[in-house]
């Protein structure tokens, strides 16, 4: 409760400072709208359904792409850890491509897929995939060899060892890779949405873009706040519980 109150106090203070800056006319109201203007935009946009609709579209793109990124990345990471040949080829490529900012996939995706959902999906998958592959490989290679040896003596074999020993043993690495993949996917999707208009649906990035075109700063700031809130929400509801579980089980400090 005390933590909640101090956090709430902090954000109230932040809004207050913002309001003061607005009233002091430090910047033109076109560049810095008041918190009330932003709030009323958000209220209006939620009221007419724009906001919910765009959020759903963005989340659908993100979750679909992220899901495929993990489903493809995890087995590829396992293969990379298992076979030297895959490590030298795919592993090296993954390492290189991970350093490529995922925004850089956007021009290529547009030329390949046009202004379509497929382009969006492709960008998100490219954002996720390499992190997941590298994290899985690192995780597997850090599993103490005594675990699979012990499992062997207990009658565990090949697939069972991979699924029940090596995979759970590398979970701390895999989860941090998934978290990184999520961050990369989220960033690249926003970049793609701001960069291109896709007629099959306007996501949050597109709302941000329209806000700029109409010089509607309250829309720009409002959407930015929504994007931050979604990021926070995902972290708190999806990753934090998993990480807490890992810390408790492994006894690593939080």
């Amino acid at each position: 409760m005390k933590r909640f109150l101090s956090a709430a106090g902090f954000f109230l203070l932040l809004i207050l400072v913002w309001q003061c800056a607005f009233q002091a006319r430090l910047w033109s109201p076109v560049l810095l709208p008041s918190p009330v203007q932003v709030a009323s935009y958000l209220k209006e946009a939620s009221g007419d359904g724009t906001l919910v609709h765009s959020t759903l579209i963005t989340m659908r793109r993100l979750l679909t792409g992220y899901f495929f990124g993990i489903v493809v990345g995890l087995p590829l990471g396992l293969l990379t850890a298992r076979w030297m040949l895959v490590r030298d080829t795919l592993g090296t490529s993954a390492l290189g491509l991970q350093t490529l900012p995922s925004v850089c996939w956007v021009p290529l995706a547009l030329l390949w897929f046009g202004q379509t959902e497929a382009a969006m999906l492709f960008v998100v998958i490219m954002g996720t995939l390499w992190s997941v592959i590298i994290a899985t490989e690192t995780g597997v290679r850090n599993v103490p060899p005594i675990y699979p040896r012990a499992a062997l003596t207990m009658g565990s074999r090949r697939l069972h060892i991979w699924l029940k020993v090596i995979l759970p043993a590398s979970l701390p690495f895999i989860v941090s890779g998934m978290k990184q993949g999520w961050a990369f996917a989220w960033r690249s999707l926003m970049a793609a949405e701001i960069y291109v208009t896709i007629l099959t649906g306007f996501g949050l990035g597109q709302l941000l873009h329209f806000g700029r075109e109409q010089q509607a700063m309250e829309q720009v700031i409002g959407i930015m706040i929504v994007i931050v809130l979604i990021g926070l929400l995902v972290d708190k509801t999806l990753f934090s519980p998993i990480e807490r579980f890992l810390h408790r089980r492994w006894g690593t400090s939080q």
Partner: protein
Amino acid sequence: MFHHKTGSVSEELQLVPPSKISIENVSKSFRSTTGPVLALDRVSLSVGEGEFVCLVGPSGCGKTTLLNIIAGLEMPDSGTVLANGKSVTGPGRDRLVMFQESALFPWLNAFGNVLFPLKLKPNLTNKNRRDVAKYYLELVGLTRFERANIHELSGGMKQRVALARALAPNPRVLLMDEPFAALDALTREQFYGDLQKIWKQRKKTIVFVTHNVREAACLGDRVLLFSPYPGRLEEEFIVDLPRPRDMNTSELATYAGKIMHSLKQSAPTA
């Protein structure tokens, strides 16, 4: 054959006959930076059914290698290894290993670790598996800690869980690789008593690797002394003392002294 889940708990806990282990002319060498090292040089020995045998020797004498070969985790370059009359071609549930580090799985709690090998036995129901796991956790005295995460357990408790996990599939042979080396003296002594009790109760053949001569004299029916470079079986001592044995008796000290004396003679000067 029908494959019903017929294994009841009492059936699962029934004593299985301990195996005899026969090792004949086993050799094994490793490559090292200074050239090939003969870890085992034509070693022959046999362990009787239900016998407790300790392998003692300085590091490099191949005692752990021999244990791994019996476990089926490593293959000898030449020679034969028979467990229960059958040639050892790989790891098997009839020969369970307890490692020096507990090798417990940190993603499972104590109970989950003991359950792990039982889940690999197809003829048991889940309820029976849980009951069997409970039985072994009680046997090692850790019922209260069954929900504990591994990192919350002390070194001694970890090894107790590891012992329960090794016993759970009801193996015929228990292979122990310096399991108490990292424990403090007091914890170790408690373990000696409990291990002798459990060995008597569950009737296992035990091959126990250690470099601690007193530990070997306290636990073994027989103590086999190995010498290094190349690893050879040097001498054999029969410890003819009543059980349960106490570490701190003068009779035991006499045996340990005799073994220590031979060990010093066989060890190369450092």
